[in-house]
């Protein structure tokens, strides 16, 4: 029987030792009327059959490995070094549970401690937790932290329109049941208006937290140092949602004065996988750490004098605090946090600078030549990282359909999330886009392929 090792003889022996006659006798507590319902499913398959079927299904999908990918908008196609999959495929890592027994879980615990350290260093913060589900839920948990920090007395969570629209939506879903809390997101008017200056005017004494994205959803980069001072002068917390690859190059949120840093950790070696599972980064100043939800690993010693690691600050968590806990979070993204730690360890100081630099340079090369194509215009007027916004002469969906015929997965159609942005594409460029592939994109955008099918 599939994955059940018992022989019939063993089953009977076990039943006899319990003192019952049949398997059905195990379920007498269930009212007869509801017992053993008909389940209308197919019969089981062997591994050979299931594997063949899955292969066939997978072939119906278009893998980004088989095209040239310019799509980003919160999920990015980066190279994943081979050593990563090899290491995280070790059963010792992926078939373990949350490290409740530190004596036999130091692998997971030290891995998470190193992950926390790497994220703290990368973001310029003092502390990080062992991860949330993804970038969006990390933003929402930051909002909840701010609510508790002011004991519910400050009611406004101010969110930049430059935050990923999905993240903003998730913040609303999470926070709307907290008494009186209001997630304020100024309406998107134009790219020019998505600036720290415009957001600063909306901070008031009722604001618990201000949330910006860096680089923002449209790729824009700002130095938020002065802005952070404004936020603090009103007594609010300042939270930045970051792209960790960009921090290989760019000024850290810590240096700008952020109190909390969240972000999507997927670019750190985690496959795209249609959107999940990803990794919610969460770092903070040390004095906020007791308000940070989720697992945290700390250093200690064991009774043999060895340096070791344990889950710490667990007294704040849901299984002890129950209805007084600040969050219901129970799991972390352990294996993905480990992936990110291995990615950062492998790339190291130079590799991380290199990949950030490659993304930056290639994106700027692409923007420069796309901007020269008649009918296309790059709208970004401020510095950007590896994503930028292009006004197009036709609906993006039509352009993308055309690009796809040429093996190119075009940029994201912004009208899908922001309806006022018709014919506007968000293009992402990473180290995996060669100059040749960027030139191809431009050639096709400029209509130099008329001899082929349209």
């Amino acid at each position, binding site marked *: 029987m599939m994955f059940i090792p018992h022989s019939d003889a063993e089953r009977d022996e076990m039943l006899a030792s319990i003192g019952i006659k049949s398997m059905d006798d195990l379920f007498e507590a269930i009212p007869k009327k509801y017992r053993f319902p008909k389940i209308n499913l197919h019969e089981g398959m062997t591994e050979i059959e299931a594997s063949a079927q899955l292969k066939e299904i997978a072939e119906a999908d278009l893998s980004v490995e088989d095209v040239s990918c310019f799509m980003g908008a919160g999920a990015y196609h980066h190279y994943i070094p081979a050593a990563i999959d090899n290491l995280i495929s070790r059963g010792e890592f992926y078939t373990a549970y949350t490290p409740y027994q530190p004596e036999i879980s130091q692998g997971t615990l030290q891995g998470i401690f190193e992950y926390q350290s790497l994220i703290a260093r990368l973001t310029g913060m003092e502390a990080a937790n062992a991860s949330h589900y993804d970038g969006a839920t990390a933003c929402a948990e930051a909002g909840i932290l701010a609510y508790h920090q002011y004991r519910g007395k400050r009611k406004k969570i101010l969110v930049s329109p430059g935050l990923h629209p999905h993240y903003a939506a998730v913040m609303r879903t999470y926070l709307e049941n907290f008494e009186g809390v209001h997630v304020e997101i100024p309406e998107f008017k134009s790219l020019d208006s998505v600036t720290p200056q415009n957001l600063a005017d909306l901070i008031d004494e009722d604001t618990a937290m201000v949330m910006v994205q860096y680089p923002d959803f449209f790729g824009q980069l700002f130095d938020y140092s002065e802005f952070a001072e404004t936020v603090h002068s009103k007594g609010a917390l300042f939270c930045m949602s970051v792209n960790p690859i960009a921090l290989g190059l760019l000024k850290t949120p810590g240096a700008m004065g952020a109190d909390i840093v969240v972000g999507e950790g997927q670019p750190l070696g985690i496959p*795209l996988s249609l959107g999940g599972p990803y990794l919610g980064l969460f770092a903070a100043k040390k004095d906020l750490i007791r308000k940070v939800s989720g697992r945290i690993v700390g250093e200690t*010693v064991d009774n*043999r004098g060895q340096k070791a690691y344990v889950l710490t600050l667990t007294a704040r968590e849901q299984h002890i605090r129950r209805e007084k806990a600040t969050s219901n979070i129970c799991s972390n993204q352990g294996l993905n946090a480990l992936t990110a730690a291995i990615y950062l360890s492998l790339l190291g100081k130079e590799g991380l600078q290199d990949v950030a630099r490659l993304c930056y340079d290639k994106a700027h090369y692409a923007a420069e030549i796309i901007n020269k194509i008649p009918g296309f215009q790059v709208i970004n007027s401020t510095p950007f990282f590896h994503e930028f916004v292009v006004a197009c002469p036709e609906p993006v969906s039509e352009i993308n359909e055309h690009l796809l015929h040429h093996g190119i997965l075009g940029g994201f159609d912004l009208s899908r999330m922001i309806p006022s942005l018709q014919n506007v594409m968000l293009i992402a460029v990473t180290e995996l886009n060669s100059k040749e592939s960027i030139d191809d994109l431009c050639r096709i955008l400029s209509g130099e392929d008329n001899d082929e099918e349209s």
Partner: protein
Amino acid sequence: MMKNREEKTIFEISSEGRKGFRFPKSDVQSAEIPDELLRENLPMPELSEIDVVRHYTHLSSLNYSVDAGFYPLGSCTMKYNPKICEKAARFSGFSQLHPLQPVETVQGALLILYEMQEMLQEISGFRACSLTPAAGAHGEFSGVKMIAAYHQQRKNSHRKTMLIPDSAHGTNPASSVMCGFRVQPVNTNERGNIDLSSLAAFCNDELAGIMITNPNTLGLFDENLVEAIDMVHQAGGLVYGDGANMNALMGIAKPAELGFDVMHFNLHKTFATPHGGGGPGAGAVCCTERLRDYLPGPIAGVIEPASDEMPPLYGWKTPERSIGQIGSFWGHFDVIVKAYIYCLMLGRDGLKRVAEFATLNANYLMHALKADYPLPYDRICMHEFVLDVKWPDAPDIRALDVAKRLMDYDFHPPTNYFPLIVHEALMIEPTETESKQTLDQFIDAMRKIAKEAHEQPDLLHDAPVNTPFGRMDEVKAAKDLKIAE
């Protein structure tokens, strides 16, 4: 003298100038970056590939895992994780899909999501399903929020009380509070069932609903379940099912038929996807017809029906009154693929056998251990059971000591100190994937430990000694609070 098993951190083994990975030289010109946007330094480690591989391989050797041995962690369903699931989830047609790709280019993935939704509905009897929740607690949050939205829609916002049995998981009260509810505990009676008179006291027009784990965290099928559900429905409340213990019910009973309105599934428990040292899991939420409009979206659906020549076109649909989006994208697709293959391989009969053998294994262990360990609720259990480590003739021994000593016998300890209503609880869930031989070895170890507890209690107090590390100074960790280096 024992071997020191400390492993230096990646920062300690870092050596200036080393590289573990090289990127190709840039094929475009370098672009200008304003100085004020550059970071000052990048304090990342510098290691070669072999440094990194050895470091993490060493770390892995310090972990216990399902692949290495028996992991009877109650309520966690640490069953075997089939290898084919890992392999297939890594197919490029699954792992390398951008979440925002046009739906026409991800029809295979959407088919999997759609069929997984259908399978979960068939197993549970529910009418609708969303796969977007990232974990059990996330599914629970979604389900409870759906109950809040349902009452709001009916202008019943005064329904603020969420009832939670005292045996429940800690996530239940925490999720309820996040959704704006007031938590009211309900007592468990001496047979381990919901106390109906305690319940009756709260069945009034402030009642929003009840959260029930069934089988409950004592491992028992609640004999008052149907009546309790009826009482809550009569009072205008809805019933949330915590599906953490679904491994005992597949093919045995359908939660929707029992009267549950909404429930989450832990794909990483019931459907054999790995736990990954804490995650990622996946926490599908399923519901009846009357709650379907509130499900978190988007959900995989048919947007163009099949025709004679063409298969159906799958796409994303967001329910009309959805509680909204709950994550960056559409859920933990990679985990769902693994659960899907598992369901394909087990099929109708296999899934029922899972519940049967999980229950058989638990009863076999319980029966064998009850002579040596106090068993507070002595009746046929489902997939798990709870012992209470309180021996009058060994008063210094606590559940924790037994748990720690088990590690010296190469077993992972059961869940301890949960549920809270059993003071010295050891909660044991063997799962169906363990053989009789493994269970017999475990019984043997537990009997030896019971004997040691009475004759050489220090063996337990000092345990574990055969593990890479000994007991930890948790006070130091919390006081010094060194959480990064």
